[in-house]
């Protein structure tokens, strides 16, 4: 029996093996993934990102536990940790925080090393998620590497993105910086039993009001002044809610899952669900085209020609743009 058929029949060993092939870009995996693709598109993809030490793994653990206990949905977890840029090795430690989930056949946890890819995800993450989707996992939680401010790939992959903050991590200025907070569909203030939680929440709320203008009433010189939002439309815009949690105790997690489900419903109602799926598949298609075209092009350019143009580039006789143009025109001459 082919691997894809075993996976559709619920064989976890076969699924684990396919995930390895996907990670290694093993050609055997591509054919299996092609066979599985028609079965994808059903799962709800939830991204979890945030700085190191905010408690992402514990939060993923408690969200997964809630989905298992109260929604009876099958849950897959993809946890990405960084690879060493020097040795290529990695220590993947997210399972340490997810021991509550062991022994439940409705949960499948897979650790991935980022393998040199920037953006908080591994290159193969999207394909790993497709395999889980086809295997019938209804909720897929994707935990990024401890992201900084620019790692926003997760927002392209997931339907709903949680950005996790914690008190005492340089809140005020960090919150104003663009990037990671703008991708948040839901903001989570984890470790909310720690001092400083009010400051963190206030900073986030201030940032949200800048990013999402709403109608507000100010008191100014004793008069009430109404400031209308600059763009008012009939379509309800989603204002990211802020949810406090203490993931290790499960506090705030039922409310968080409620907010996640509300966001999913919002996406379905205003058509963004389909739009996000389309954007994701378009990005994947373009990535594949880029990879393939570059490989084909390199096969058509003799190595000597490539090296000669590269020499000209290094010697500053050609600009990078002119060098690319020279390589492209050399292939036109030969065909």
């Amino acid at each position, binding site marked *: 029996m082919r691997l894809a058929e075993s996976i559709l029949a619920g064989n976890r060993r076969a699924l684990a093996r396919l995930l390895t092939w996907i990670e290694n870009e093993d050609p055997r995996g591509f054919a299996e993934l092609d066979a599985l693709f028609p079965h994808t598109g059903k799962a709800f993809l939830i991204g979890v990102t945030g700085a190191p030490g905010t408690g992402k793994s514990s939060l993923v653990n408690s969200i997964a536990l809630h989905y298992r206990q109260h929604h009876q949905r099958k849950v897959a977890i993809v946890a990405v940790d960084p690879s060493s840029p020097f040795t*290529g*090795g990695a220590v*993947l430690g997210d399972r340490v925080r997810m021991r509550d989930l062991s022994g439940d056949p409705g949960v499948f946890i897979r650790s991935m090393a980022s393998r040199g890819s920037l953006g908080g995800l591994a290159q193969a993450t999207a394909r790993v998620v497709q395999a889980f989707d086809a295997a019938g996992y209804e909720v897929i939680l994707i935990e990024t590497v401890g992201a900084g401010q620019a790692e926003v790939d997760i927002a392209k992959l997931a339907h709903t993105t949680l950005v996790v903050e914690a008190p005492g991590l340089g809140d005020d200025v960090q919150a104003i910086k663009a990037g990671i907070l703008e991708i948040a569909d839901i903001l989570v203030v984890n470790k909310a039993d720690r001092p400083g939680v009010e400051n963190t929440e206030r900073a986030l709320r201030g940032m949200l009001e800048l990013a999402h203008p709403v109608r507000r009433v100010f008191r100014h010189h004793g008069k009430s002044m109404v400031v209308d939002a600059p763009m008012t439309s009939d379509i309800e815009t989603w204002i990211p809610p802020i949810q406090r949690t203490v993931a290790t105790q499960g506090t705030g997690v039922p409310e968080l899952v409620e907010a996640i489900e509300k966001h999913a419903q919002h996406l379905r109602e205003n058509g963004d669900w389909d739009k996000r799926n389309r954007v994701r598949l378009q990005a994947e298609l373009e990535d594949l085209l880029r990879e393939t075209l570059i490989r084909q092009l390199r096969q058509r350019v003799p190595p000597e020609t490539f090296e000669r143009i590269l020499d000209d580039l290094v010697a500053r006789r050609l600009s990078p743009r002119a060098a690319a143009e020279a390589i492209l025109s050399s292939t036109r001459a030969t065909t």
Partner: protein
Amino acid sequence: MSERKIRVLIAKPGLDGHDRGAKVVARALRDAGMEVIYTGLRQTPEMIAEAALQEDVDVVGLSILSGAHMALVPRILDLLRANGLDDVLVFVGGIIPDDDMPALREMGVSGVYGPGASTEAIVEDIRTAMQAKFAQEPH
């Protein structure tokens, strides 16, 4: 096809709470370019076999200092086999009396590393075994 990475699960079965050795080995294997999944303290044999299955590891390293190795190791090996993980290399580290070593090897443990064992030896043993294994895989 990108490089075939060696994936290793480092696990601590049983009740002893001392994981320095496990972490030193995890770090040494990472520095040797392997991907190491570390699962933390007090894992049951079932948890270890399940993690090995989900992570599709090539190697499982068990750190045991409680003296319960003659009970834990056979149980873990049985569960790994029951999960279809026959070809996984299993090694053991910790406090293992010399007298128990032949019995552990008999069960299918590839290597036993006590206090003072060099991390280089562990890395070398894994690499040698994996070279033989990967050579048999289709390309």
